[in-house]
Structures are given as structure tokens and as C-alpha cells.
């Protein structure tokens, strides 16, 4: 199966390591992806607060473009950013469910020379890796297992609810399974899907930073050596504000925060440089890498 790839604005900016590691990883696993040409902003969260119909129109344009290059059947569009993932899915639901939104969007699309038939499946990399590629294939590709590295898998909010169906919104496990396949040990914690504070870290530090801080603190309490994320905003919040958390809460949290794709890539022996590891601000995860060629043992 061939996939289309919708990076979204963040993966071209602060989320560059996510894009780099994701594309390398998919390449290594033999998953073909092509970046959607001429894409625009998905219409995410902040946009929705100003005008949700325009937000849906933005999302719909991307879906139309994807449909146009996807051929006649259903096409799969990978959206790695949680906000993009949510908005692209939400737009599909609302266009269908709310007649007037559907009409406005359809008419506006027509005016722009576009038409949407509803054939796009918006997918998150977690979903694709777990359900399409499968744990077995990942296990096979692992050459340098993570040797019991204790990882706190952090999913964040919008990737597991309310439009995602690939995992349990209360106790998601897909990332845990993937990283266990790479030899990591994942910690069981209750805050996997709790909000990281979103854009509040920049606008309302007291609230936003505390949310991120709570996550890091609980991850450390549960014994995690690294937090794995699946969303550029989560990663940014958890990683880039650690010094500020220190000054505000007087409690030093030094915790490596990496994209799950980076960790998987490491396990597959992809050089750190190719995975954007050096772009991380927080301390690099001290990853106990197994000898080359070692296989993952035990059940996941």
C-alpha cells in the first residue's frame, strides 16, 4: 500500500526531528510515502476558535488534494501531528453530519475547482505502524534493541480522542507495543492521554507549564528514563520548557523527551544524525543499545 504524507506546519519547523525520523523509519520498513503537494494548514485548534467553518474548509482542501492523487479507491493520508490528525478527521465527520457545513464547504470547494468524495482515510503513524506494518515486521527490523530502556509512552489527547478508533482512549497501548517490540520496557502510568497543556505553555505559563510538569514528574516517579511522544506540540512542551519548570516549580525535571519514531529508528540501527537526535534540546536519552544484530526476546 502506498501512503500520502501530510506533514502539517509543525513538522517543517520545531517538529523537524519528527519528520526526519518518521520518514527514515518508514523507508527502512519499506513503507512508501509521498508528501502531499500544495498542502495548506490543517485548520487546527487555534483556527477553530475563530471560525470553525473556515477551519473545515482548510481541512477539506487537503483532503481533496489527497483524493485527487490517490486514484479511484480509498486513499490513506498519514498525519503525524495530533492536531492535524484530529482536525482532518473531525472535518470529515462534521461535513457529513451537519448539512449546512457540508453545503458551505462543498460550494466553496467547487468555487476553488475542487470536490471531495469522502474517500480519504486519515491515519496516524502509530496506527499505520501497528495495524498495517505490524509488530512482527518491526521486531524483524530491529537490529540494536533498546535493551530494557524504560520508556513512558505519552500519547497526549487529540490522537486518541474523540475521532481516533485505533486505540483505547483511556489506556492507549499501541505505542507501548511498538516500543516493546524494539526491546524497550514501557512503564504503566495513568497520564498517558492527559493533556500536555497545548499552547497554554506559551500563553498561560502557570497552567500550561504545570500540566507538562505533572507529566514529566509522574513519568519519573514511575521510573521512566525517557518519555516518548507522538505529537510535535507535546514534544516541544515537554522538552523545551524543562529549565523554566525548574525555575517555576523549584523541582528539577531532567528528562529526555524523544519522538517514538526516533526511538524505533535507533533500535533499527539508523544513525542518530539521520533521526534528528542532535536537534533535541533536553539531555539526549542515554540509550542502552544492544549489540548490532541482536533480536528482541520475549513476548511483548
Amino acid at each position, binding site marked *: 500500500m502506498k501512503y500520502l504524507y501530510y506533514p502539517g506546519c509543525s513538522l517543517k519547523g520545531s517538529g523537524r526531528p519528527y519528520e526526519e525520523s518518521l520518514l527514515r523509519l518508514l523507508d527502512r520498513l519499506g513503507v512508501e510515502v509521498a508528501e502531499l503537494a500544495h498542502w*495548506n494548514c490543517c485548520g487546527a485548534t487555534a483556527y477553530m476558535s475563530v471560525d470553525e467553518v473556515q477551519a473545515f474548509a482548510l481541512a477539506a482542501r487537503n483532503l481533496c488534494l489527497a483524493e485527487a492523487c490517490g486514484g479511484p479507491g480509498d486513499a490513506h493520508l498519514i498525519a503525524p501531528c495530533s492536531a492535524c490528525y484530529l482536525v482532518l478527521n473531525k472535518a470529515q465527520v462534521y461535513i457529513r453530519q*451537519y448539512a449546512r457545513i457540508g453545503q458551505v464547504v462543498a460550494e466553496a470547494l467547487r468555487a476553488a475547482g475542487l470536490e471531495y468524495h469522502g474517500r480519504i482515510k486519515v491515519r496516524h503513524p502509530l496506527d499505520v505502524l501497528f495495524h498495517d506494518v505490524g509488530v512482527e515486521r518491526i521486531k524483524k527490523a530491529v537490529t540494536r534493541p533498546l535493551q530494557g530502556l524504560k520508556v513512558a509512552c505519552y500519547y497526549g489527547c487529540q490522537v486518541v480522542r474523540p475521532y481516533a478508533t485505533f486505540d483505547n482512549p483511556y489506556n492507549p497501548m499501541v505505542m507501548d507495543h511498538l516500543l516493546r517490540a524494539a526491546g524497550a520496557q514501557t512503564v504503566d502510568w495513568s497520564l498517558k492521554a492527559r493533556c500536555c497543556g497545548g499552547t497554554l505553555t506559551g500563553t498561560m505559563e502557570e497552567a500550561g507549564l504545570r500540566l507538562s510538569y505533572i507529566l514529566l514528574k509522574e513519568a519519573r516517579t514511575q521510573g521512566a528514563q525517557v518519555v516518548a511522544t507522538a505529537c510535535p506540540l507535546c514534544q516541544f512542551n515537554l522538552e523545551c520548557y524543562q529549565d523554566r519548570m525548574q525555575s517555576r516549580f523549584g523541582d528539577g525535571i531532567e528528562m529526555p523527551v524523544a519522538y517514538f519514531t526516533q526511538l524505533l529508528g535507533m533500535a533499527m540501527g539508523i544513525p542518530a544524525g539521520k533521526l534528528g537526535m542532535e536537534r533535541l534540546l533536553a539531555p539526549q536519552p542515554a540509550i542502552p543499545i544492544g549489540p548490532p544484530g541482536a533480536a528482541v526476546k520475549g513476548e511483548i
Partner: protein
Amino acid sequence: MSHPRITWRVKYQEDLDLAFGREIAARPGGEDLYRCIQCGTCSSTCPLSIYMERTPRQIIAMARAGFKDEVLASHTIWLCTSCYACTVDCPKQIKITDIMYALKQKALGEKVYPARFPIPVLAKEFFQAVRRTGRSNESRIVVRMFLQTRPWKLLGNIRLGLKLLRRGRLALRREKMDGGQAQLRMLLQTTRRLENQTPARSPPLAESH
């Protein structure tokens, strides 16, 4: 010691705006507003409710009772990060996140948010940037937001900015679409025109059970 200051508090019905609740209920996602049984699940599942001067449950009660001014001026709606926990947990399946969006839109439309309050400014800057270029450019938006709200904060962020810049995670050039801008402009213009004609604020066609 002075006596504690006591004030009287009462709400007269004529000072309430009952149409306000109906208007919110008429927006997409607002359709179940009047179904709320005030159980408080939204408030307790919300990770930010601890910062809110009124819990989401209270906002809903006030919105439908017509406390328009209090609701729109409330910080609560701006503290919502759209994590959708309330929407998923609500036993009455009220789309609370959407109601918060509707209230934010209303507040922006009526310009009743507090001055120099960064969250709505960020939303607006984001909106403008996407309209102009089709994509958002994180650094520019953030800089503009700080300039408008708390310029002194910008200094504190310079260090972080530089760090990111060194690591190639901060794009100084304006992020642009690789073509299709004209089409996008047409799309957004038409959407706006159609919306001004008849707002897309109708209840859903069919509810999925």
C-alpha cells in the same frame, strides 16, 4: 480590624439573555446544550478546571440561563486546550469542546476578552497567518503575540529561540505553500461569503447513535 465587606448579590431575570443559550445551542456541536444534568463530569475530567474561576459545568449552566456577559468574559473558555476529555466522558454526550469553541468565537466576535490577554491574540494571529500564507509559521506568530500582549516576555524567550535556531527547529523565513495559494484564497473567500449569507449554524442532519 475592619469589618468584612459584605455585598449583596442577586440576578434579575431581565438582566439575563435567554437567547444566548439558544444561539450557542444552534451552533454545530451545541445541539445537546440543554441536555446537561449538571453532573460535573466535565469539570472533574478537565485537566485545567483547577485554574478556572468557573468550572465548565458552571459555564454550561450559565450559558443556558443567559449569563451572557459573565460567560464571555470568563477565562474558562480560553483555558480550554481542546483535549476533548470532557466531550468523550460526558454521559449526555454533549460536545463540550465544541461549545467552548462557539463561546470563544462569540467572545472574539464581540471583542469581550480581557485586554492584553494572550490566548485570543494567539488564536487571531494564527488565523491571520494562515489566511495570508496558507500555513502557520510558529516563530512569527509567537513573536507577534508577545509584541501585542506582553512585549517584555519576548526577552525571556530569546534564549529558547536561539537554541532552537541552532538546532534547525526555528524557521526564520516565512513558511509558504508550494503552490495553490490562489486556490486557497478562493476557497476561504467563498466560505466567508457563504457564511455571511446564511451561517452554517444548523443542527445536525442525523444523529448517530
